[in-house]
């Protein structure tokens, strides 16, 4: 499928470096955790989680995202997707823990909403560098109890999401959904492993994507050889045992790069 033309209908400033871009059609079948390939024409095409059926939430980090930040309402970009495997939804009555770090909150926002709609009690641990960078705080608060951590202590617990997690009884949750910077996810992974709740957990991974279709192999992880773009980006904790998570990633050429 060739890229669809997405016209921007609204831009929300979520934080100094993060914006949500709403576009003029809905990915009706989208499951939270699935991603789209966002084609900033003439520049690059990059993966972004869907933060709703008709939006992406983007952190400005480099060339493509900076160009995106120059776009205004009425401008457009290309979109292919939705691709990949999303988070699995809880059943009615199950308890869900959402663990979001930084822009990792983007795919987890629609997940928390969907989990609540499914009849689950949803708790969220939301981490960011500082209070200003906290994403979707109101949304998460609406879906249930929220625990906040900031690196600089400007809001909530000073420290990392793991500092919040260490004081929670994780055995009460039936689903644990995690997305954030890899360092953070690796710490969470170890913590969940220690607490023996890994089998309830799912992590959304980032790797360098080229095709986004599961064909080129750019995004495969060790040792399983699973494709992040197709078999993921959401993997169960168990799938990630003995994986490269937190150890290394690969650059666009395929070379291993330490995390």
């Amino acid at each position, binding site marked *: 499928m060739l*890229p669809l033309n997405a016209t921007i209908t609204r831009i929300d400033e979520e934080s100094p470096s993060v914006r949500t871009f709403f576009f003029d059609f809905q990915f009706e079948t989208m499951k939270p955790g699935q991603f789209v390939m966002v084609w900033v*024409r003439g520049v690059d095409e990059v993966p972004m989680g869907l933060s709703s059926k008709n939006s992406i939430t983007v952190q400005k980090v480099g060339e493509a995202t900076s160009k995106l930040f120059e776009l205004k309402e009425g401008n457009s970009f*290309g979109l292919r997707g939705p691709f990949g495997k999303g988070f699995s939804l809880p059943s009615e009555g199950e308890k869900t823990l959402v663990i979001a770090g930084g822009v990792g909150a983007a795919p987890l926002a629609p997940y928390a909403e969907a989990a609540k709609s499914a009849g689950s009690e949803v708790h969220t641990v939301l981490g960011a560098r500082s209070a200003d960078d906290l994403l979707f705080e109101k949304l998460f608060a609406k879906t249930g109890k929220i625990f906040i951590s900031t690196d600089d202590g400007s809001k909530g617990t000073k420290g990392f999401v793991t500092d919040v997690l260490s004081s929670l009884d994780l055995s009460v949750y039936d689903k644990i959904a995690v997305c954030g910077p890899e360092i953070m996810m690796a710490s969470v992974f170890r913590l969940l492993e220690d607490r023996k709740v890994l089998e309830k957990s799912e992590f959304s991974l980032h790797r360098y994507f080229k095709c986004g*279709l599961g064909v080129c192999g750019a995004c495969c992880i060790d040792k399983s*050889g699973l*494709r992040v773009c197709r078999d993921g980006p959401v993997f169960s904790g168990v799938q990630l045992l003995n994986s490269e998570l937190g150890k290394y990633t690969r650059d666009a050429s395929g070379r291993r790069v330490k995390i």
Partner: protein
Amino acid sequence: MYTLTGLKLKNPTILAAGILGTTGASLCRVAREGGAGGVVSKSIGPMPKTGHPNPSMVKFECGFLNAMGLPNPSYPSFLQELDIAKKDSGVPVIASIFGGNPAEFKEVAEGLLPAKPDAFELNVSCPHAEGYGAAVGSNPCLVEAITAAVKETVNVPVWVKLTPNVSDITCIGSAAESGGADAVVAINTLKGMAIDIESGYPVLGNRSGGLSGKAVKPVAVKCVYDLYTALEIPVIGVGGVSSWQDAVEMMMAGAAAVQVGSAVYDRLDIFSEISKGIETFLQRKGYSDVKELIGLSHEMV
């Protein structure tokens, strides 16, 4: 067991170059879970290359367009991946390599020898990497020289992968044969492009790229058919194979084995599916050996 240029394959389906072949782990997965009889790595070159900007691959109704631009970590970094593939895949591992001239091909082949690939496949056919691939592979003299240079360097089979973007593919195939190739592989992608009419931008980051998948199968079958007539060495068929029927067709055209690329999009175990389908077909038709299919259409006149 199926023997091809001395390699013992579980079955006559092989993973094509550049597909799920950037890491040792994914090569192992295609062999073990996918059921491939052999696997070819991503094409590896003398220097790390990040490839073309995205979009680097898009799917359309009848196939795929890609312009990866030969991203690869270069041979020194790829050695560890090849090691993994050799150790754990359980099938022959063929190293695909590229360079801009005979010396570069030689350098890369030599550099990968420590990992003991079972064969080399020379990519003189990628249609969208300046100075590489088809840029050298459209010139019969260069193809012969490159083949000879690698043959001199290694003592495992050397396959040469051909581009269909030439007036006469058999002329390039003959050059590879003269250079000492143990087999030719046909075809790499066809030059192609797509334009996004909403914006006017070519869809691929590299503007144009290579066409693969169902769309190219009739072209691949014709190339294999012609090469089978022209050459003594085996022809390995690739291009649009996505079912056992396609594989049988390719073999009847003259392919000694098939490679599968784009069709891994449909399902990873396409290799097992194809090889089972071929088996059932052989039984139904009363053939005793898959080799009886090879080139069969040439006898039907």
